[in-house]
């Protein structure tokens, strides 16, 4: 592997977004293919972040700062990536369900997913079911993630899934749910495809779901 790609992985791990941009540009100038910069530079660095996060060596803010650096690098790469490179980047739509204004958990999951290599479309908070339907129709995501913080608003996850079915888009996507009151049991009960207890696990869950889908 080229030295510059290892350097990209290293500065990304440190969360140094300026150096990530400088080095991504340098790698491209050296003639390294954009797809290779993505896989062996940015994603390699993020993989190490994920490993150390799961081991307890990194804290959430450090992962988020690496994710921000990843984002900065992607802004340079995205226009240059081929269709096949882009296809490997899966899309996920996330939002907080109707009646609920809480967003820190959802934002955290979104940032962690971006760090995990997903393209994340955050459609906001207090979302009536039709907003999720619209997002599926316009964005064609692989996954839809719903968040709720309150026991009362959690019920709207079920209403949203029902709305996806009524609109005929439920089969196009995998639906995942999360938030303080949500349990695996509740997720199964309302017919979601997945549940993760925290932001780190949400990334693993999303990866396993797209793998199933692709496989």
């Amino acid at each position: 592997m080229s030295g510059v790609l290892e350097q990209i992985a290293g500065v990304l791990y440190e969360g140094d977004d300026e150096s990530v941009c400088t080095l991504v540009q340098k790698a491209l100038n050296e003639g390294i293919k954009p797809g290779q910069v993505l896989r062996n530079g940015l994603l390699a660095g993020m993989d190490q972040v994920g490993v150390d996060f799961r081991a307890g060596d990194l804290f959430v803010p450090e992962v988020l700062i690496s994710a921000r650096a990843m984002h900065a690098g992607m802004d340079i790469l995205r226009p240059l990536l081929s269709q096949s490179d882009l296809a490997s980047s899966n899309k996920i739509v996330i939002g907080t369900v109707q009646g609920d204004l809480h967003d820190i958990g959802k934002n955290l999951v979104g940032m962690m997913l971006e760090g995990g290599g997903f393209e994340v479309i955050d459609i906001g908070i207090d979302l009536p079911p039709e907003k999720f339907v619209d997002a599926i129709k316009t964005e064609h995501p692989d996954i839809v993630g719903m968040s709720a913080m309150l026991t009362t608003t959690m019920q709207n996850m079920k209403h949203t899934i029902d709305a996806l079915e009524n609109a005929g888009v439920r089969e196009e996507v995998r639906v995942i749910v999360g938030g303080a009151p949500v349990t695996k049991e509740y997720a199964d009960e309302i017919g979601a495809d997945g549940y993760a207890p925290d932001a780190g696990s949400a990334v693993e869950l999303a990866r396993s779901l797209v793998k199933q889908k692709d496989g």
Partner: protein
Amino acid sequence: MRLSGERKGQPGPGKGLIGGQYKPLTDEDVKRIHEASLAILDRTGIQVEDPETLRLFEDAGAEIEGTRVRLSSSLVEDSIAKAPSRVVLAGREEENDLILEGARVYIGTGGAALQVLDLETGKIRRAVLQDVVNAARIVDALENIHFYLIPVYPTDLPKETVEVNKYYAALANTTKHVQAGVYTIQGIRDVIKMGEHIMGGGKRLRERPVVSFITSWMISPLKFDTNVTRMLIEICRQRMPVVLSAAPMAGSTAPVTMAGMLAQLNAEQLAGLTLTQLVEPGCPVLIGPIPATADMRSGKYLGGSTELGLCNAAITQMAHFYQVPIYNSAGMTDAKIPDIQAGIEKTQSVFQVALAGANFIHHAAGMLEDMSTIAYEQFVIDNIMLGMAMHAVRGIEINDETLALDAINRVGPGGHYLMDEHTLRHMRTEHFYPSTVFDRQERELWEQDGSHDTWYRAKEIARRILIEHKPKPLDKASEEGIRGSFASILVL
């Protein structure tokens, strides 16, 4: 998400932090206990049978009547003034030095238990020299245990070789300060010689003593143990740090009232302190009052009583009043296994005594069944509780930086602090993180890991420490010097 406390750059709360926030006695109470203790020494006095000790007291002007010695207030108060208010106990590594003074708090192991709750069989067995080695290695690896008071008496050795072997086994397996009880004058001299080999001579050892001694010289109430008092005098003459350990029980060897016990115990300590300063003015001594209670239903010694925590905190105030360093106890339990009773009893007394600002709190890790049994996994569990207590001692830092007004303004209403520079600057040091012995995961993740309890996880960590942790060995010269001096040392 599995946050553990064992990551890089995640220090414990620290040691030698300043306690003293918790004061069960008022200033007036402290004065009354002091006066009561002086009255006890003047009126009732102490019993001393050793002729040399009697002569020392007599020469100092004490009133002698047979074996009864009565001490005047002025003699006692002169002696308190001569005793050092600061005693340093060194580790082989300087970062492990303990500066005992004021309300600085250090916490560690204690005891001379004869039993071990075996890590693998879960059954009780007799303690052996290998347990001294293993417990030293575990303590060496655990950041919130600040010193290694050898917690077991190895039952597999003849009495003549116990001292050199247990001190050697401890010193070779931890760089933290090593303290233990001693049983013979020869043993004391041997251990001092061992310390001199390690520190490079007698002067250096006195500057940074890597070993110190406990003498249980007092048979409460108010009677000197002749044999142990002779050892105490020997250690004072050698100017090595020594503890005046006494552990009366309210109801049997002290008055049943806590006040009466404190007055008597304090009098005993002052009598011992007076003797040490008559032997060798200014010699480094720690008072060692360990107030406890007897179970009046059985007469049994109680390690886990609330009174133990309360009274050890109170007697700490007496040490602060006299400005002498104090060794006392917390973290004992009457439970037989690392169960809920153990957790609650240990925690209540450690928090009380640490917040009181005791300097050298022993018995606080690894111990079960009052002082009778150790368990390797209990050290691992207690390490977390001690960290929590030290975090409480550390308290809350209030200044411009910690009040975070700039960060609050940067983030603004409705934002979040997860990526703010202020968060990154403080997140590894502001909060206490227990190691993975405590579970903080979501239920699903805990279930994926096998739904284990604290006891199970602590055993796993203890096993891992014994396999992976390699304490810094003694340097070659010390090792050869010690081996050359003591043929009786067993190789472990």
